[in-house]
């Protein structure tokens, strides 16, 4: 198993290939549907005026995301009243919903990796080549197990999105993933999709 620690260098990213198992340590930021839409609308396409603490959070995010990782995750968090936050369940959510946004977010913030599940499409794969970056697949549903690798919750942005959609700043130790899309144009998801489609076509030809 390969080890990487955030922030990650371009060289370390280019060294990762589809099929590699990796243990990730260091800081990362959670972000999913609301966060991606908000980043695109407010700071990248600028179709929406910044409101409230948007600009302040943007400055923080620029520093935090540079060379780092976005985790598609909507955690279960304890300590909400006391702000002594702890992740107790924190598996990946389905990544494909961020397909319209992901490549632009990666390039804008120089994000080196995305962790999620289910894989992403051609636009993100191209983004992985250009940034460069990789897509890391975590085990969907393994929420209690993955939460144990979250050693500290450093803070949270955009709590108004709700607990699952807020952007949590976390520190992880040896978070286990598999590289399923790399910076060289390789995608395990495209391979499996094509192969399974061929089998489906054969099955559809079979008599009942």
């Amino acid at each position, binding site marked *: 198993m390969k080890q990487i620690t955030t922030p990650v260098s371009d060289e370390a990213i280019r060294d990762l290939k589809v099929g590699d198992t990796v243990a990730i340590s260091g800081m990362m930021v959670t972000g999913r549907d609301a966060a991606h839409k908000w980043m695109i609308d407010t700071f990248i396409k600028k179709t929406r005026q910044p409101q409230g603490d948007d600009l302040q959070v943007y400055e923080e995010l620029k520093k935090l995301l540079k060379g780092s990782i976005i985790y598609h995750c909507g955690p279960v968090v304890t300590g909400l009243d006391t702000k002594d936050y702890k992740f107790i369940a*924190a598996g990946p959510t389905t990544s494909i919903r961020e397909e319209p946004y992901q490549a632009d977010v990666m390039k804008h913030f120089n994000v080196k990796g995305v962790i999620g599940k289910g894989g992403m499409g051609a636009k993100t794969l191209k983004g992985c080549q250009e940034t460069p970056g990789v897509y890391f697949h975590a085990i969907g*549903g393994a929420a209690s197990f993955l939460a144990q690798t979250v050693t500290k919750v450093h803070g949270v942005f955009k709590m108004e999105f709700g607990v*699952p959609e807020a952007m949590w700043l976390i520190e992880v130790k040896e978070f286990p993933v598999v590289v399923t899309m790399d910076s060289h144009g390789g995608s395990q998801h495209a391979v499996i999709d094509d192969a399974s489609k061929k089998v489906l076509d054969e099955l*559809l030809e079979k008599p009942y």
Partner: protein
Amino acid sequence: MPALEVPMRDLTNEILELIRRTSSSLPPDVEKRLRESIEKEEPGSAARGALETILKNIDLSRANSTPICQDTGTPIFQVHYPVGWSTIQLKAQIRAAMAEATKRSYMRPNAVDAIYDKNTGNNLGGDDFPYIHFEETESDELTIELMLKGGGCENVGRQYSLPENSLGAGRDLAGVRKVVLDAVQKAQGQGCAPGVLGVSIGGDRGSSYIKSKEVLFSEMGTRNEDPKLAELEERLTKESNEMGIGPMGFGGKTTVLDTKIVGLSRLPASYFVSVSYMCWAYRRRKLTVKDDEVIYD
């Protein structure tokens, strides 16, 4: 006498315990099927690694009473109540238990107003969240079943209106087979494979989807009483696994753990097939109240 004044046992704490169990402790029949699947995957493969992690997670969640999956899903309650129980009161108790379960982190706050994007913070949405189905029974036992169905697998569910020409699927079981296999291929690993398929044939668009979920309340390996449908259930599981999608879509032999089919009535004009995909985190638990006794499965 108004319903709220009818004296009835308060089951709020028992329902809270049902929610805790459902969220943190996978049913034994599902766990058994997952353990059996491991042996089918190549040692050292990503597929086998995924199943190993899944099993570790199942143990850990049960030991610590933490959610198996952070997406604690849509809570779907099915209540069978003896004559004389008040569904108004039962509904109030279920809702109170749900809010408390959220406070205790058995549940993630999961009800988001679709128009204003606000999360209610307590898993209580409008009248439909949590979803509760009440059915009066002649039995003297009250049963409350709960299923938690995550959003990832819900999103890969599909409904077909037959004939579906793009797949050569006509209005018969041969056509049903084709569209279900198509749904499995399109889902890839996104519904957290290995999954379980709930399939309903017939109905209108609404009842068809509802029944495709209700059929998932039955145990693993339960076959339809109609031999024709039982055979199709087994064939669909087998053929789904031939597609090589595997756990998490990593590639492998285990894509679908089981298939359950229900046949409904349909209009002459309509022939719907609905496929509800249930992720491996197939959380469903039951609570039975008989006289003064409360039994959890």
